[in-house]
């Protein structure tokens, strides 16, 4: 009986501590960023009114549908292409970095550091850096997304391979298989579902981030939204949001279906 009370008391203390920490973070952060709760709450009705008003496209917005759709298609193609190329590079790179293949511990360490570098330099920085040399070109967005995707996928693939393939590669090694045989008969078959799942996830993420990159590099759907937004043509901007939502939900639906089949 006494022990039970103890558990309950400990729980109460835990909840109190968690609540206090949250409150502390809130007040500290609100002070530093000059965030006012009242303004935040006041902004809600306006934002939802905006959505409600502008989800109904006007004539001008309807006449722009073909242009919006072609940019949206471009964004989708871009995201898929970036993810696929980054995945191919990241897979080859992660073979050098896993403990499973035991190529060389120093190379492995180096691969991890390079991946961490590409992953942690914000895509915003890559976008602005590439703007200087590539200008307002689709390649600017392509490369900016490529670098971050490459870094992220390398880490993800290394973790997947280490987790799934190490035992079967060990067995293959014992039977005298060489490196190529280990990769094709051990690593690829065992980690393929995990890798494909990551690729699908990155395609979804990249569609969302390409909007942001588009705004910075003046390309694609992000630029179109930014332009309509700054010209205060909100129905057209609202239409882009609507199409974007449909696109992302469709892609999410497709990849969930695929995941269910392959898992």
């Amino acid at each position, binding site marked *: 009986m006494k022990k039970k009370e103890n558990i309950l008391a400990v729980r109460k203390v835990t909840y109190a501590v968690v609540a206090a920490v949250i409150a502390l973070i809130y007040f500290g952060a609100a002070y530093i960023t000059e965030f006012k709760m009242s303004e935040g709450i006041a902004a809600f009705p306006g934002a939802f009114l905006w959505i409600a008003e502008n989800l109904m496209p006007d004539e001008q917005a309807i006449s722009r549908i073909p242009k919006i759709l072609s940019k949206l298609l471009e964004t989708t193609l*871009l995201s898929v292409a970036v993810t696929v190329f980054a995945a191919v590079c990241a897979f080859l790179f992660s073979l050098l970095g896993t403990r499973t293949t035991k190529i060389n511990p120093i190379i492995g360490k180096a691969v991890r550091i390079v991946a961490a570098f590409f992953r942690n330099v914000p895509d915003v920085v890559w976008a602005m*850096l590439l703007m200087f040399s590539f200008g307002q070109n689709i390649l600017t967005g392509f490369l900016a997304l490529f670098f971050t995707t490459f870094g992220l996928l390398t880490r993800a693939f290394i973790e997947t391979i280490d987790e799934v393939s190490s035992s079967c590669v060990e067995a293959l090694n014992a039977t005298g298989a060489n490196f190529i045989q280990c990769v094709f008969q051990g690593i690829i078959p065992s980690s393929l579902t995990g890798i494909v799942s990551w690729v699908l996830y990155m395609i979804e993420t990249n569609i969302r981030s390409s909007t942001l990159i588009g705004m910075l590099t003046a390309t694609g759907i992000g630029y179109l939204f930014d332009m309509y937004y700054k010209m205060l043509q909100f129905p057209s901007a609202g239409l882009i949001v609507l199409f974007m939502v449909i696109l992302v939900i469709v892609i*999410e639906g497709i990849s969930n279906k695929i995941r269910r089949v392959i898992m």
Partner: protein
Amino acid sequence: MDMAIQLTGIEKSRNGKIRVRAKSKSNTAIKLLIFVLLAISVIALLTFDYKDIDLGKAIADTFANIKTVFLAPKLSRGTLADILYQLLVTFCLGALSTVFGMILAFFCSLLCAQNIADKRIANVVKSIVAFVRAVPTVLWVLIFAISAGLGSVAAVLGLTFHSFAYLTKVYAEAIEEIDSGTIEALRASGAGFWQIITQAILPSSLSYMVAWTFMRFEINFTNAVAMGAAAGAGGIGFNLFMAGSFYFDLREMGALTYIVVIAVVLLEMLSTKIKSKAK
């Protein structure tokens, strides 16, 4: 051929070799998927409008710029203390939106976890969450900026929306993993809704939730940097944007990038630690 399979039980390919890998639905699906993705990528690269770019010069320039940014960083506008304060602002933007997202997500996940919620309400909440998640963060920030003006309020609300949708999904999954027997036992003994939450759901999924929330904080931090750059939300992202797109100061950009990268790496290390403890 059919007879042969029946007799031996071994599947053989057309040229008589024994099949090593079984044909299965998932194997075919993966092969098909990889083929489709590769085809889309090739089509994409062939149809893009490259506007006659001089690729050789662009690549050479890129390498030169990368060299300047990462090998010769130098802060020329503002002292290190100023920049670190801006980093703190970004950090706080991320923290605020994580806290708000977390609180909203907690209540919404109670409404949409399959084992405790009403089915109809769960479906409504899930569709709302799917909608919120589908809109990119930067668009949420700009939508809120229409009524709140560009600044920290719009940034925090925009970041909150996306984290809320993400965390709702994660929390609901955590709650769904709880043994249904625990909840049933509490219900049978007459526990109310809140008692079930504080005595069954929170104790068993709190550490998991904390780990995911911290991971979301990491994402919110990088997003806050991006929002500073793309939506004028303040913090170090804004400094980056000014250095890159206004002053064209590559060396300043390099210094700011290093500061951001160090912050992100530290957060990542902390997050890994929290995650391994939560398991």
